[in-house]
């Protein structure tokens, strides 16, 4: 480790990793500071698949995507410091000082450019101001995801989900596969926020109802959650009297929004968007403080990790140009690519094989709207016997949760039973990408990061 770097990157999620790669490629000396024990950011807990369709042209799980992003740094001269909590940023004009708390001491790292890649946090119950008691059993979706996927916790048996964002939808499927009964997803807006494909594959696949224009108006239970009251809302999103309904449940999952993480940015006086808390940047992704760049979810929450990586490359490269005094700043590309969101149309199949996300319909036995042959085949199968990739975790001999995925899609109807069967598996030796176990003739690959 040195005490000066051209570029210091805070956060080693997809944003930080891609920024580091781009900065290093231009010849800058680079350090990545990450408070977790391993790189990958939020991806490590997203064990479902569907990442990487754009960047790597295949469907990866979150940990697999992270592993690839880390592999891309192989052979580059980048210092990576994990278990390193950045506690403060100090602006000394041309140079910036970064105060880092680590187990081997309190470090000060000087740098010419900083890339903020600190991701986001979740909105909580307090912030949406849900009245009622304060029992256990109320989790934000991301927290629930980390307890279930990383620690193998059984967090609840009868579950209500508030918010139809993708994390909530993903958790509806996850908890169902883990054996819980998901009673319903309630969305305050008049239409769902999540991707069409997630509504299909996470809710419809399992018969989980989704109601819009609804909110949780009261939390009930003195110790563990006992019930929630759901109500319809008016155009001001206020609960309408007389529409309340009580749902008995032991768990409430909140998927009610993400807030860019910018406490450190505030230290430096970086201007934030007062509405979203995202760091404001110009066309080259530089914040209001010269030499400080921002990308990924701490700038603006993006739906797809692929977009984050792409944007971060621009931020990293520009940070290097700033530090090295090179001209020719790149402007960030418009990231308007996004998969279709909202209610899936009736009798339409949304292809999930590539980022185009074609809507395919059958009329008089003829398929319409597919963009390629693979998609046509997908739609045909979807019509008669839908197939899904099963992702889950299994325990290794030390009791750690190892993410796995089926090597090929399996019949949708077999998902729950296969998941249950996997619960008794104990992995011996396992390597990422290799077959970890076989159930009913179906191979499951280890999908670990690292």
């Amino acid at each position, binding site marked *: 480790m040195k005490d000066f770097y051209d570029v210091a990157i805070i956060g080693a999620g997809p944003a930080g990793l891609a920024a580091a790669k781009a900065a290093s490629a231009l010849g800058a000396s680079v350090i990545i500071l990450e408070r977790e024990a391993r790189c990958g950011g939020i991806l490590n807990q997203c064990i479902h698949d569907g990442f990487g369709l754009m960047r790597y042209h295949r469907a990866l799980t979150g940990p697999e995507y992270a592993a690839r992003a880390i592999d891309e740094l192989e052979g580059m001269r980048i210092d990576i410091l994990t278990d390193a909590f950045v506690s403060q940023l100090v602006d000394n004009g041309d140079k910036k000082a970064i105060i880092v708390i680590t187990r081997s001491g309190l470090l000060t790292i000087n740098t010419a450019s900083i890339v903020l890649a600190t991701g986001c946090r979740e909105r909580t119950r307090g912030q949406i101001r849900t009245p009622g008691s304060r029992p256990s059993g109320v989790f934000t979706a991301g927290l629930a995801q980390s307890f279930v996927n990383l*620690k193998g916790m059984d967090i609840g048996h009868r579950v209500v989900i508030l918010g139809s964002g993708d994390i909530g939808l993903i958790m509806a499927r996850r908890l169902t596969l883990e054996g819980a009964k998901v009673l319903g997803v309630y969305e305050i807006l008049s239409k769902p926020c999540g991707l069409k494909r997630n509504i299909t594959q996470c809710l419809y696949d399992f018969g989980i109802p989704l109601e819009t224009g609804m909110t949780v108006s009261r939390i009930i239970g003195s110790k563990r959650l006992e019930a929630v009251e759901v109500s319809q809302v008016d155009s001001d999103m206020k609960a309408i009297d007389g529409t309340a309904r009580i749902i008995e449940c032991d768990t409430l999952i909140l998927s009610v929004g993400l807030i860019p993480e910018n406490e450190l940015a505030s230290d430096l006086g970086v201007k934030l968007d007062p509405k979203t808390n995202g760091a404001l940047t110009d066309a080259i992704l530089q914040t209001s403080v010269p030499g400080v760049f921002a990308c990924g979810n701490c700038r603006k929450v993006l739906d797809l990790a692929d977009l984050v990586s792409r944007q971060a490359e621009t931020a990293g490269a520009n940070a290097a140009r700033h530090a090295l005094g090179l001209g020719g700043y790149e402007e960030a590309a418009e990231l308007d690519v996004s998969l279709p969101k909202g209610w899936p149309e009736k009798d339409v199949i949304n292809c999930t094989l590539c980022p185009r996300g074609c809507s395919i319909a059958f009329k008089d036995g003829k398929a319409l709207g597919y963009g390629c042959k693979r998609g046509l085949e997908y739609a045909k199968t979807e019509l008669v016997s839908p197939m899904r990739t099963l992702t889950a975790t299994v325990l290794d001999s030390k009791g750690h949760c190892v993410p796995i995925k089926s090597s090929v899609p399996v019949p949708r109807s077999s998902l729950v039973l296969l998941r249950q069967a996997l619960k008794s598996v104990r992995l011996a030796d396992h390597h990422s990408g290799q077959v970890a176990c076989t159930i009913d003739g179906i191979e499951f690959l280890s999908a670990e990061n690292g």
Partner: protein
Amino acid sequence: MRYDVAIIGAGAVGCAIARELSFFKLKVAVLEKSCDVAFGTSGRNSAVCHAGFNNKTTSLMARFCVEGNRLMEGLCQDLGVEYRKTGKFLIGFDEADMRTLEALVEKGKANGCTGLQIVGMDAVHAKVPGVGGIGAMSSPNTAIFDTFGYTVALAENAKANGCDFYFSHAVKSVSEGPDPYRFIIDGAIEAKVLINSAGLFADKVSSLCGVDGYRIYPCKGQYYVYDKIADSTLQVPVYPAPRPGIGGLGIHLTPTIHGNVIAGPSADYQDDPEDYCTTKPVLDQLLSESSLLLGSLRPGQIIASYAGIRPKQAPPSQGGFMDFTIKAEQGRKGLVNLIGIESPGLTASVPIAMHVRDILIDHQRDFGLDMQARENPIRTRKAPVRFASLDREEQARLIKENPDYGTVVCRCQTVTLAEIKKAIDNVLGCRSIASVKYRAWPTTGRCQGGYCMTRIVAELMKSGLKAEEINLRDEGSNLFWGQAR
């Protein structure tokens, strides 16, 4: 088990009494229905060390509050509890308010408060810019402190002198035993003296002991918690001038010792002494009233809400404050009742405890006690390390000493692994999530545990708990049903 004294209730008052009695050669037990101290009213209030101008002159409330305010700074120093003398402003919005404030200054003087004066808004704005109103009363001796840490410290001090704590022990029956152990509690614990410091349940505990006639009227106060904006917006508590009502201090804004701002409390009578629900209409009212005091508060800065319940003796039809009832009951030898210990009960807790001590000294013959002072009792408790509040050199030194200071567990409040471990390994043996929170203050920031909860759970499991044994608070508030094993 046999004790000289059994105290029911481990709130600030029960723990202060335990500490006071632990300075004597007595066998003392504290019985608490929750799994930790301060889970009742003592953990759900404004955490203000009041000056004592608001209480009826000659009342116990006034006397003990003024005395408590005088003692608190030293106490907090001895017990290693965070305390800050902020002073406080009472804001007048019209001429009637100003007359109320002038009368308060006089009442305060009569109660023995010092330094009270009427000031113009310039003086207020110099300390808290942006506050509305036309004039104010300044109370320089008002302070804020850590009410959880305070109650924990009192209990730990008592424990260090040999006091026993029984947690998760709700007293359900008290029968009569032969002299001198006249109280048999739940058939198992015998005591010569029973001190009823059961807060909201003090009327019921008194009845268990055969003394009827008390009634507690629960009166809920709801609060909003704002993000850590105290430094930038509000360093001094601001209250509206008191107006006639059912006996609260009006919705006020208070910086907390940890840097947040709280707005509240409302005041609504209810029947249930344990219904801590927050309700939409009241929370909306809090928002609008607090923005009257300080227009710059934004709803987006709210991170949590909570409620506390006042154990009032004054029925709803009467309202206002009735004085504390603290006495040795004639009808039941050895029973000391503390009824209606509402605000300023926290401020007054140690003077109340000294008063109870004096009652025992007065009655020792009768009660069969021998009130001999212990030689060199422990009177202090070491302050827990607060990594975030230290300067960099000190932080660096701590990490060298113990690398666990180099692992940040709670990102919002910068609480380190070393502090979490210490909090889990606490003297009283309390291991709920809230117990860790009250001691080291994680989960209380803007992410409300989103980041640190998994880490705290991991540490609790390392300490020997199974997943299904991890509770948010009391038994039954489990976070998990189990774990894949």
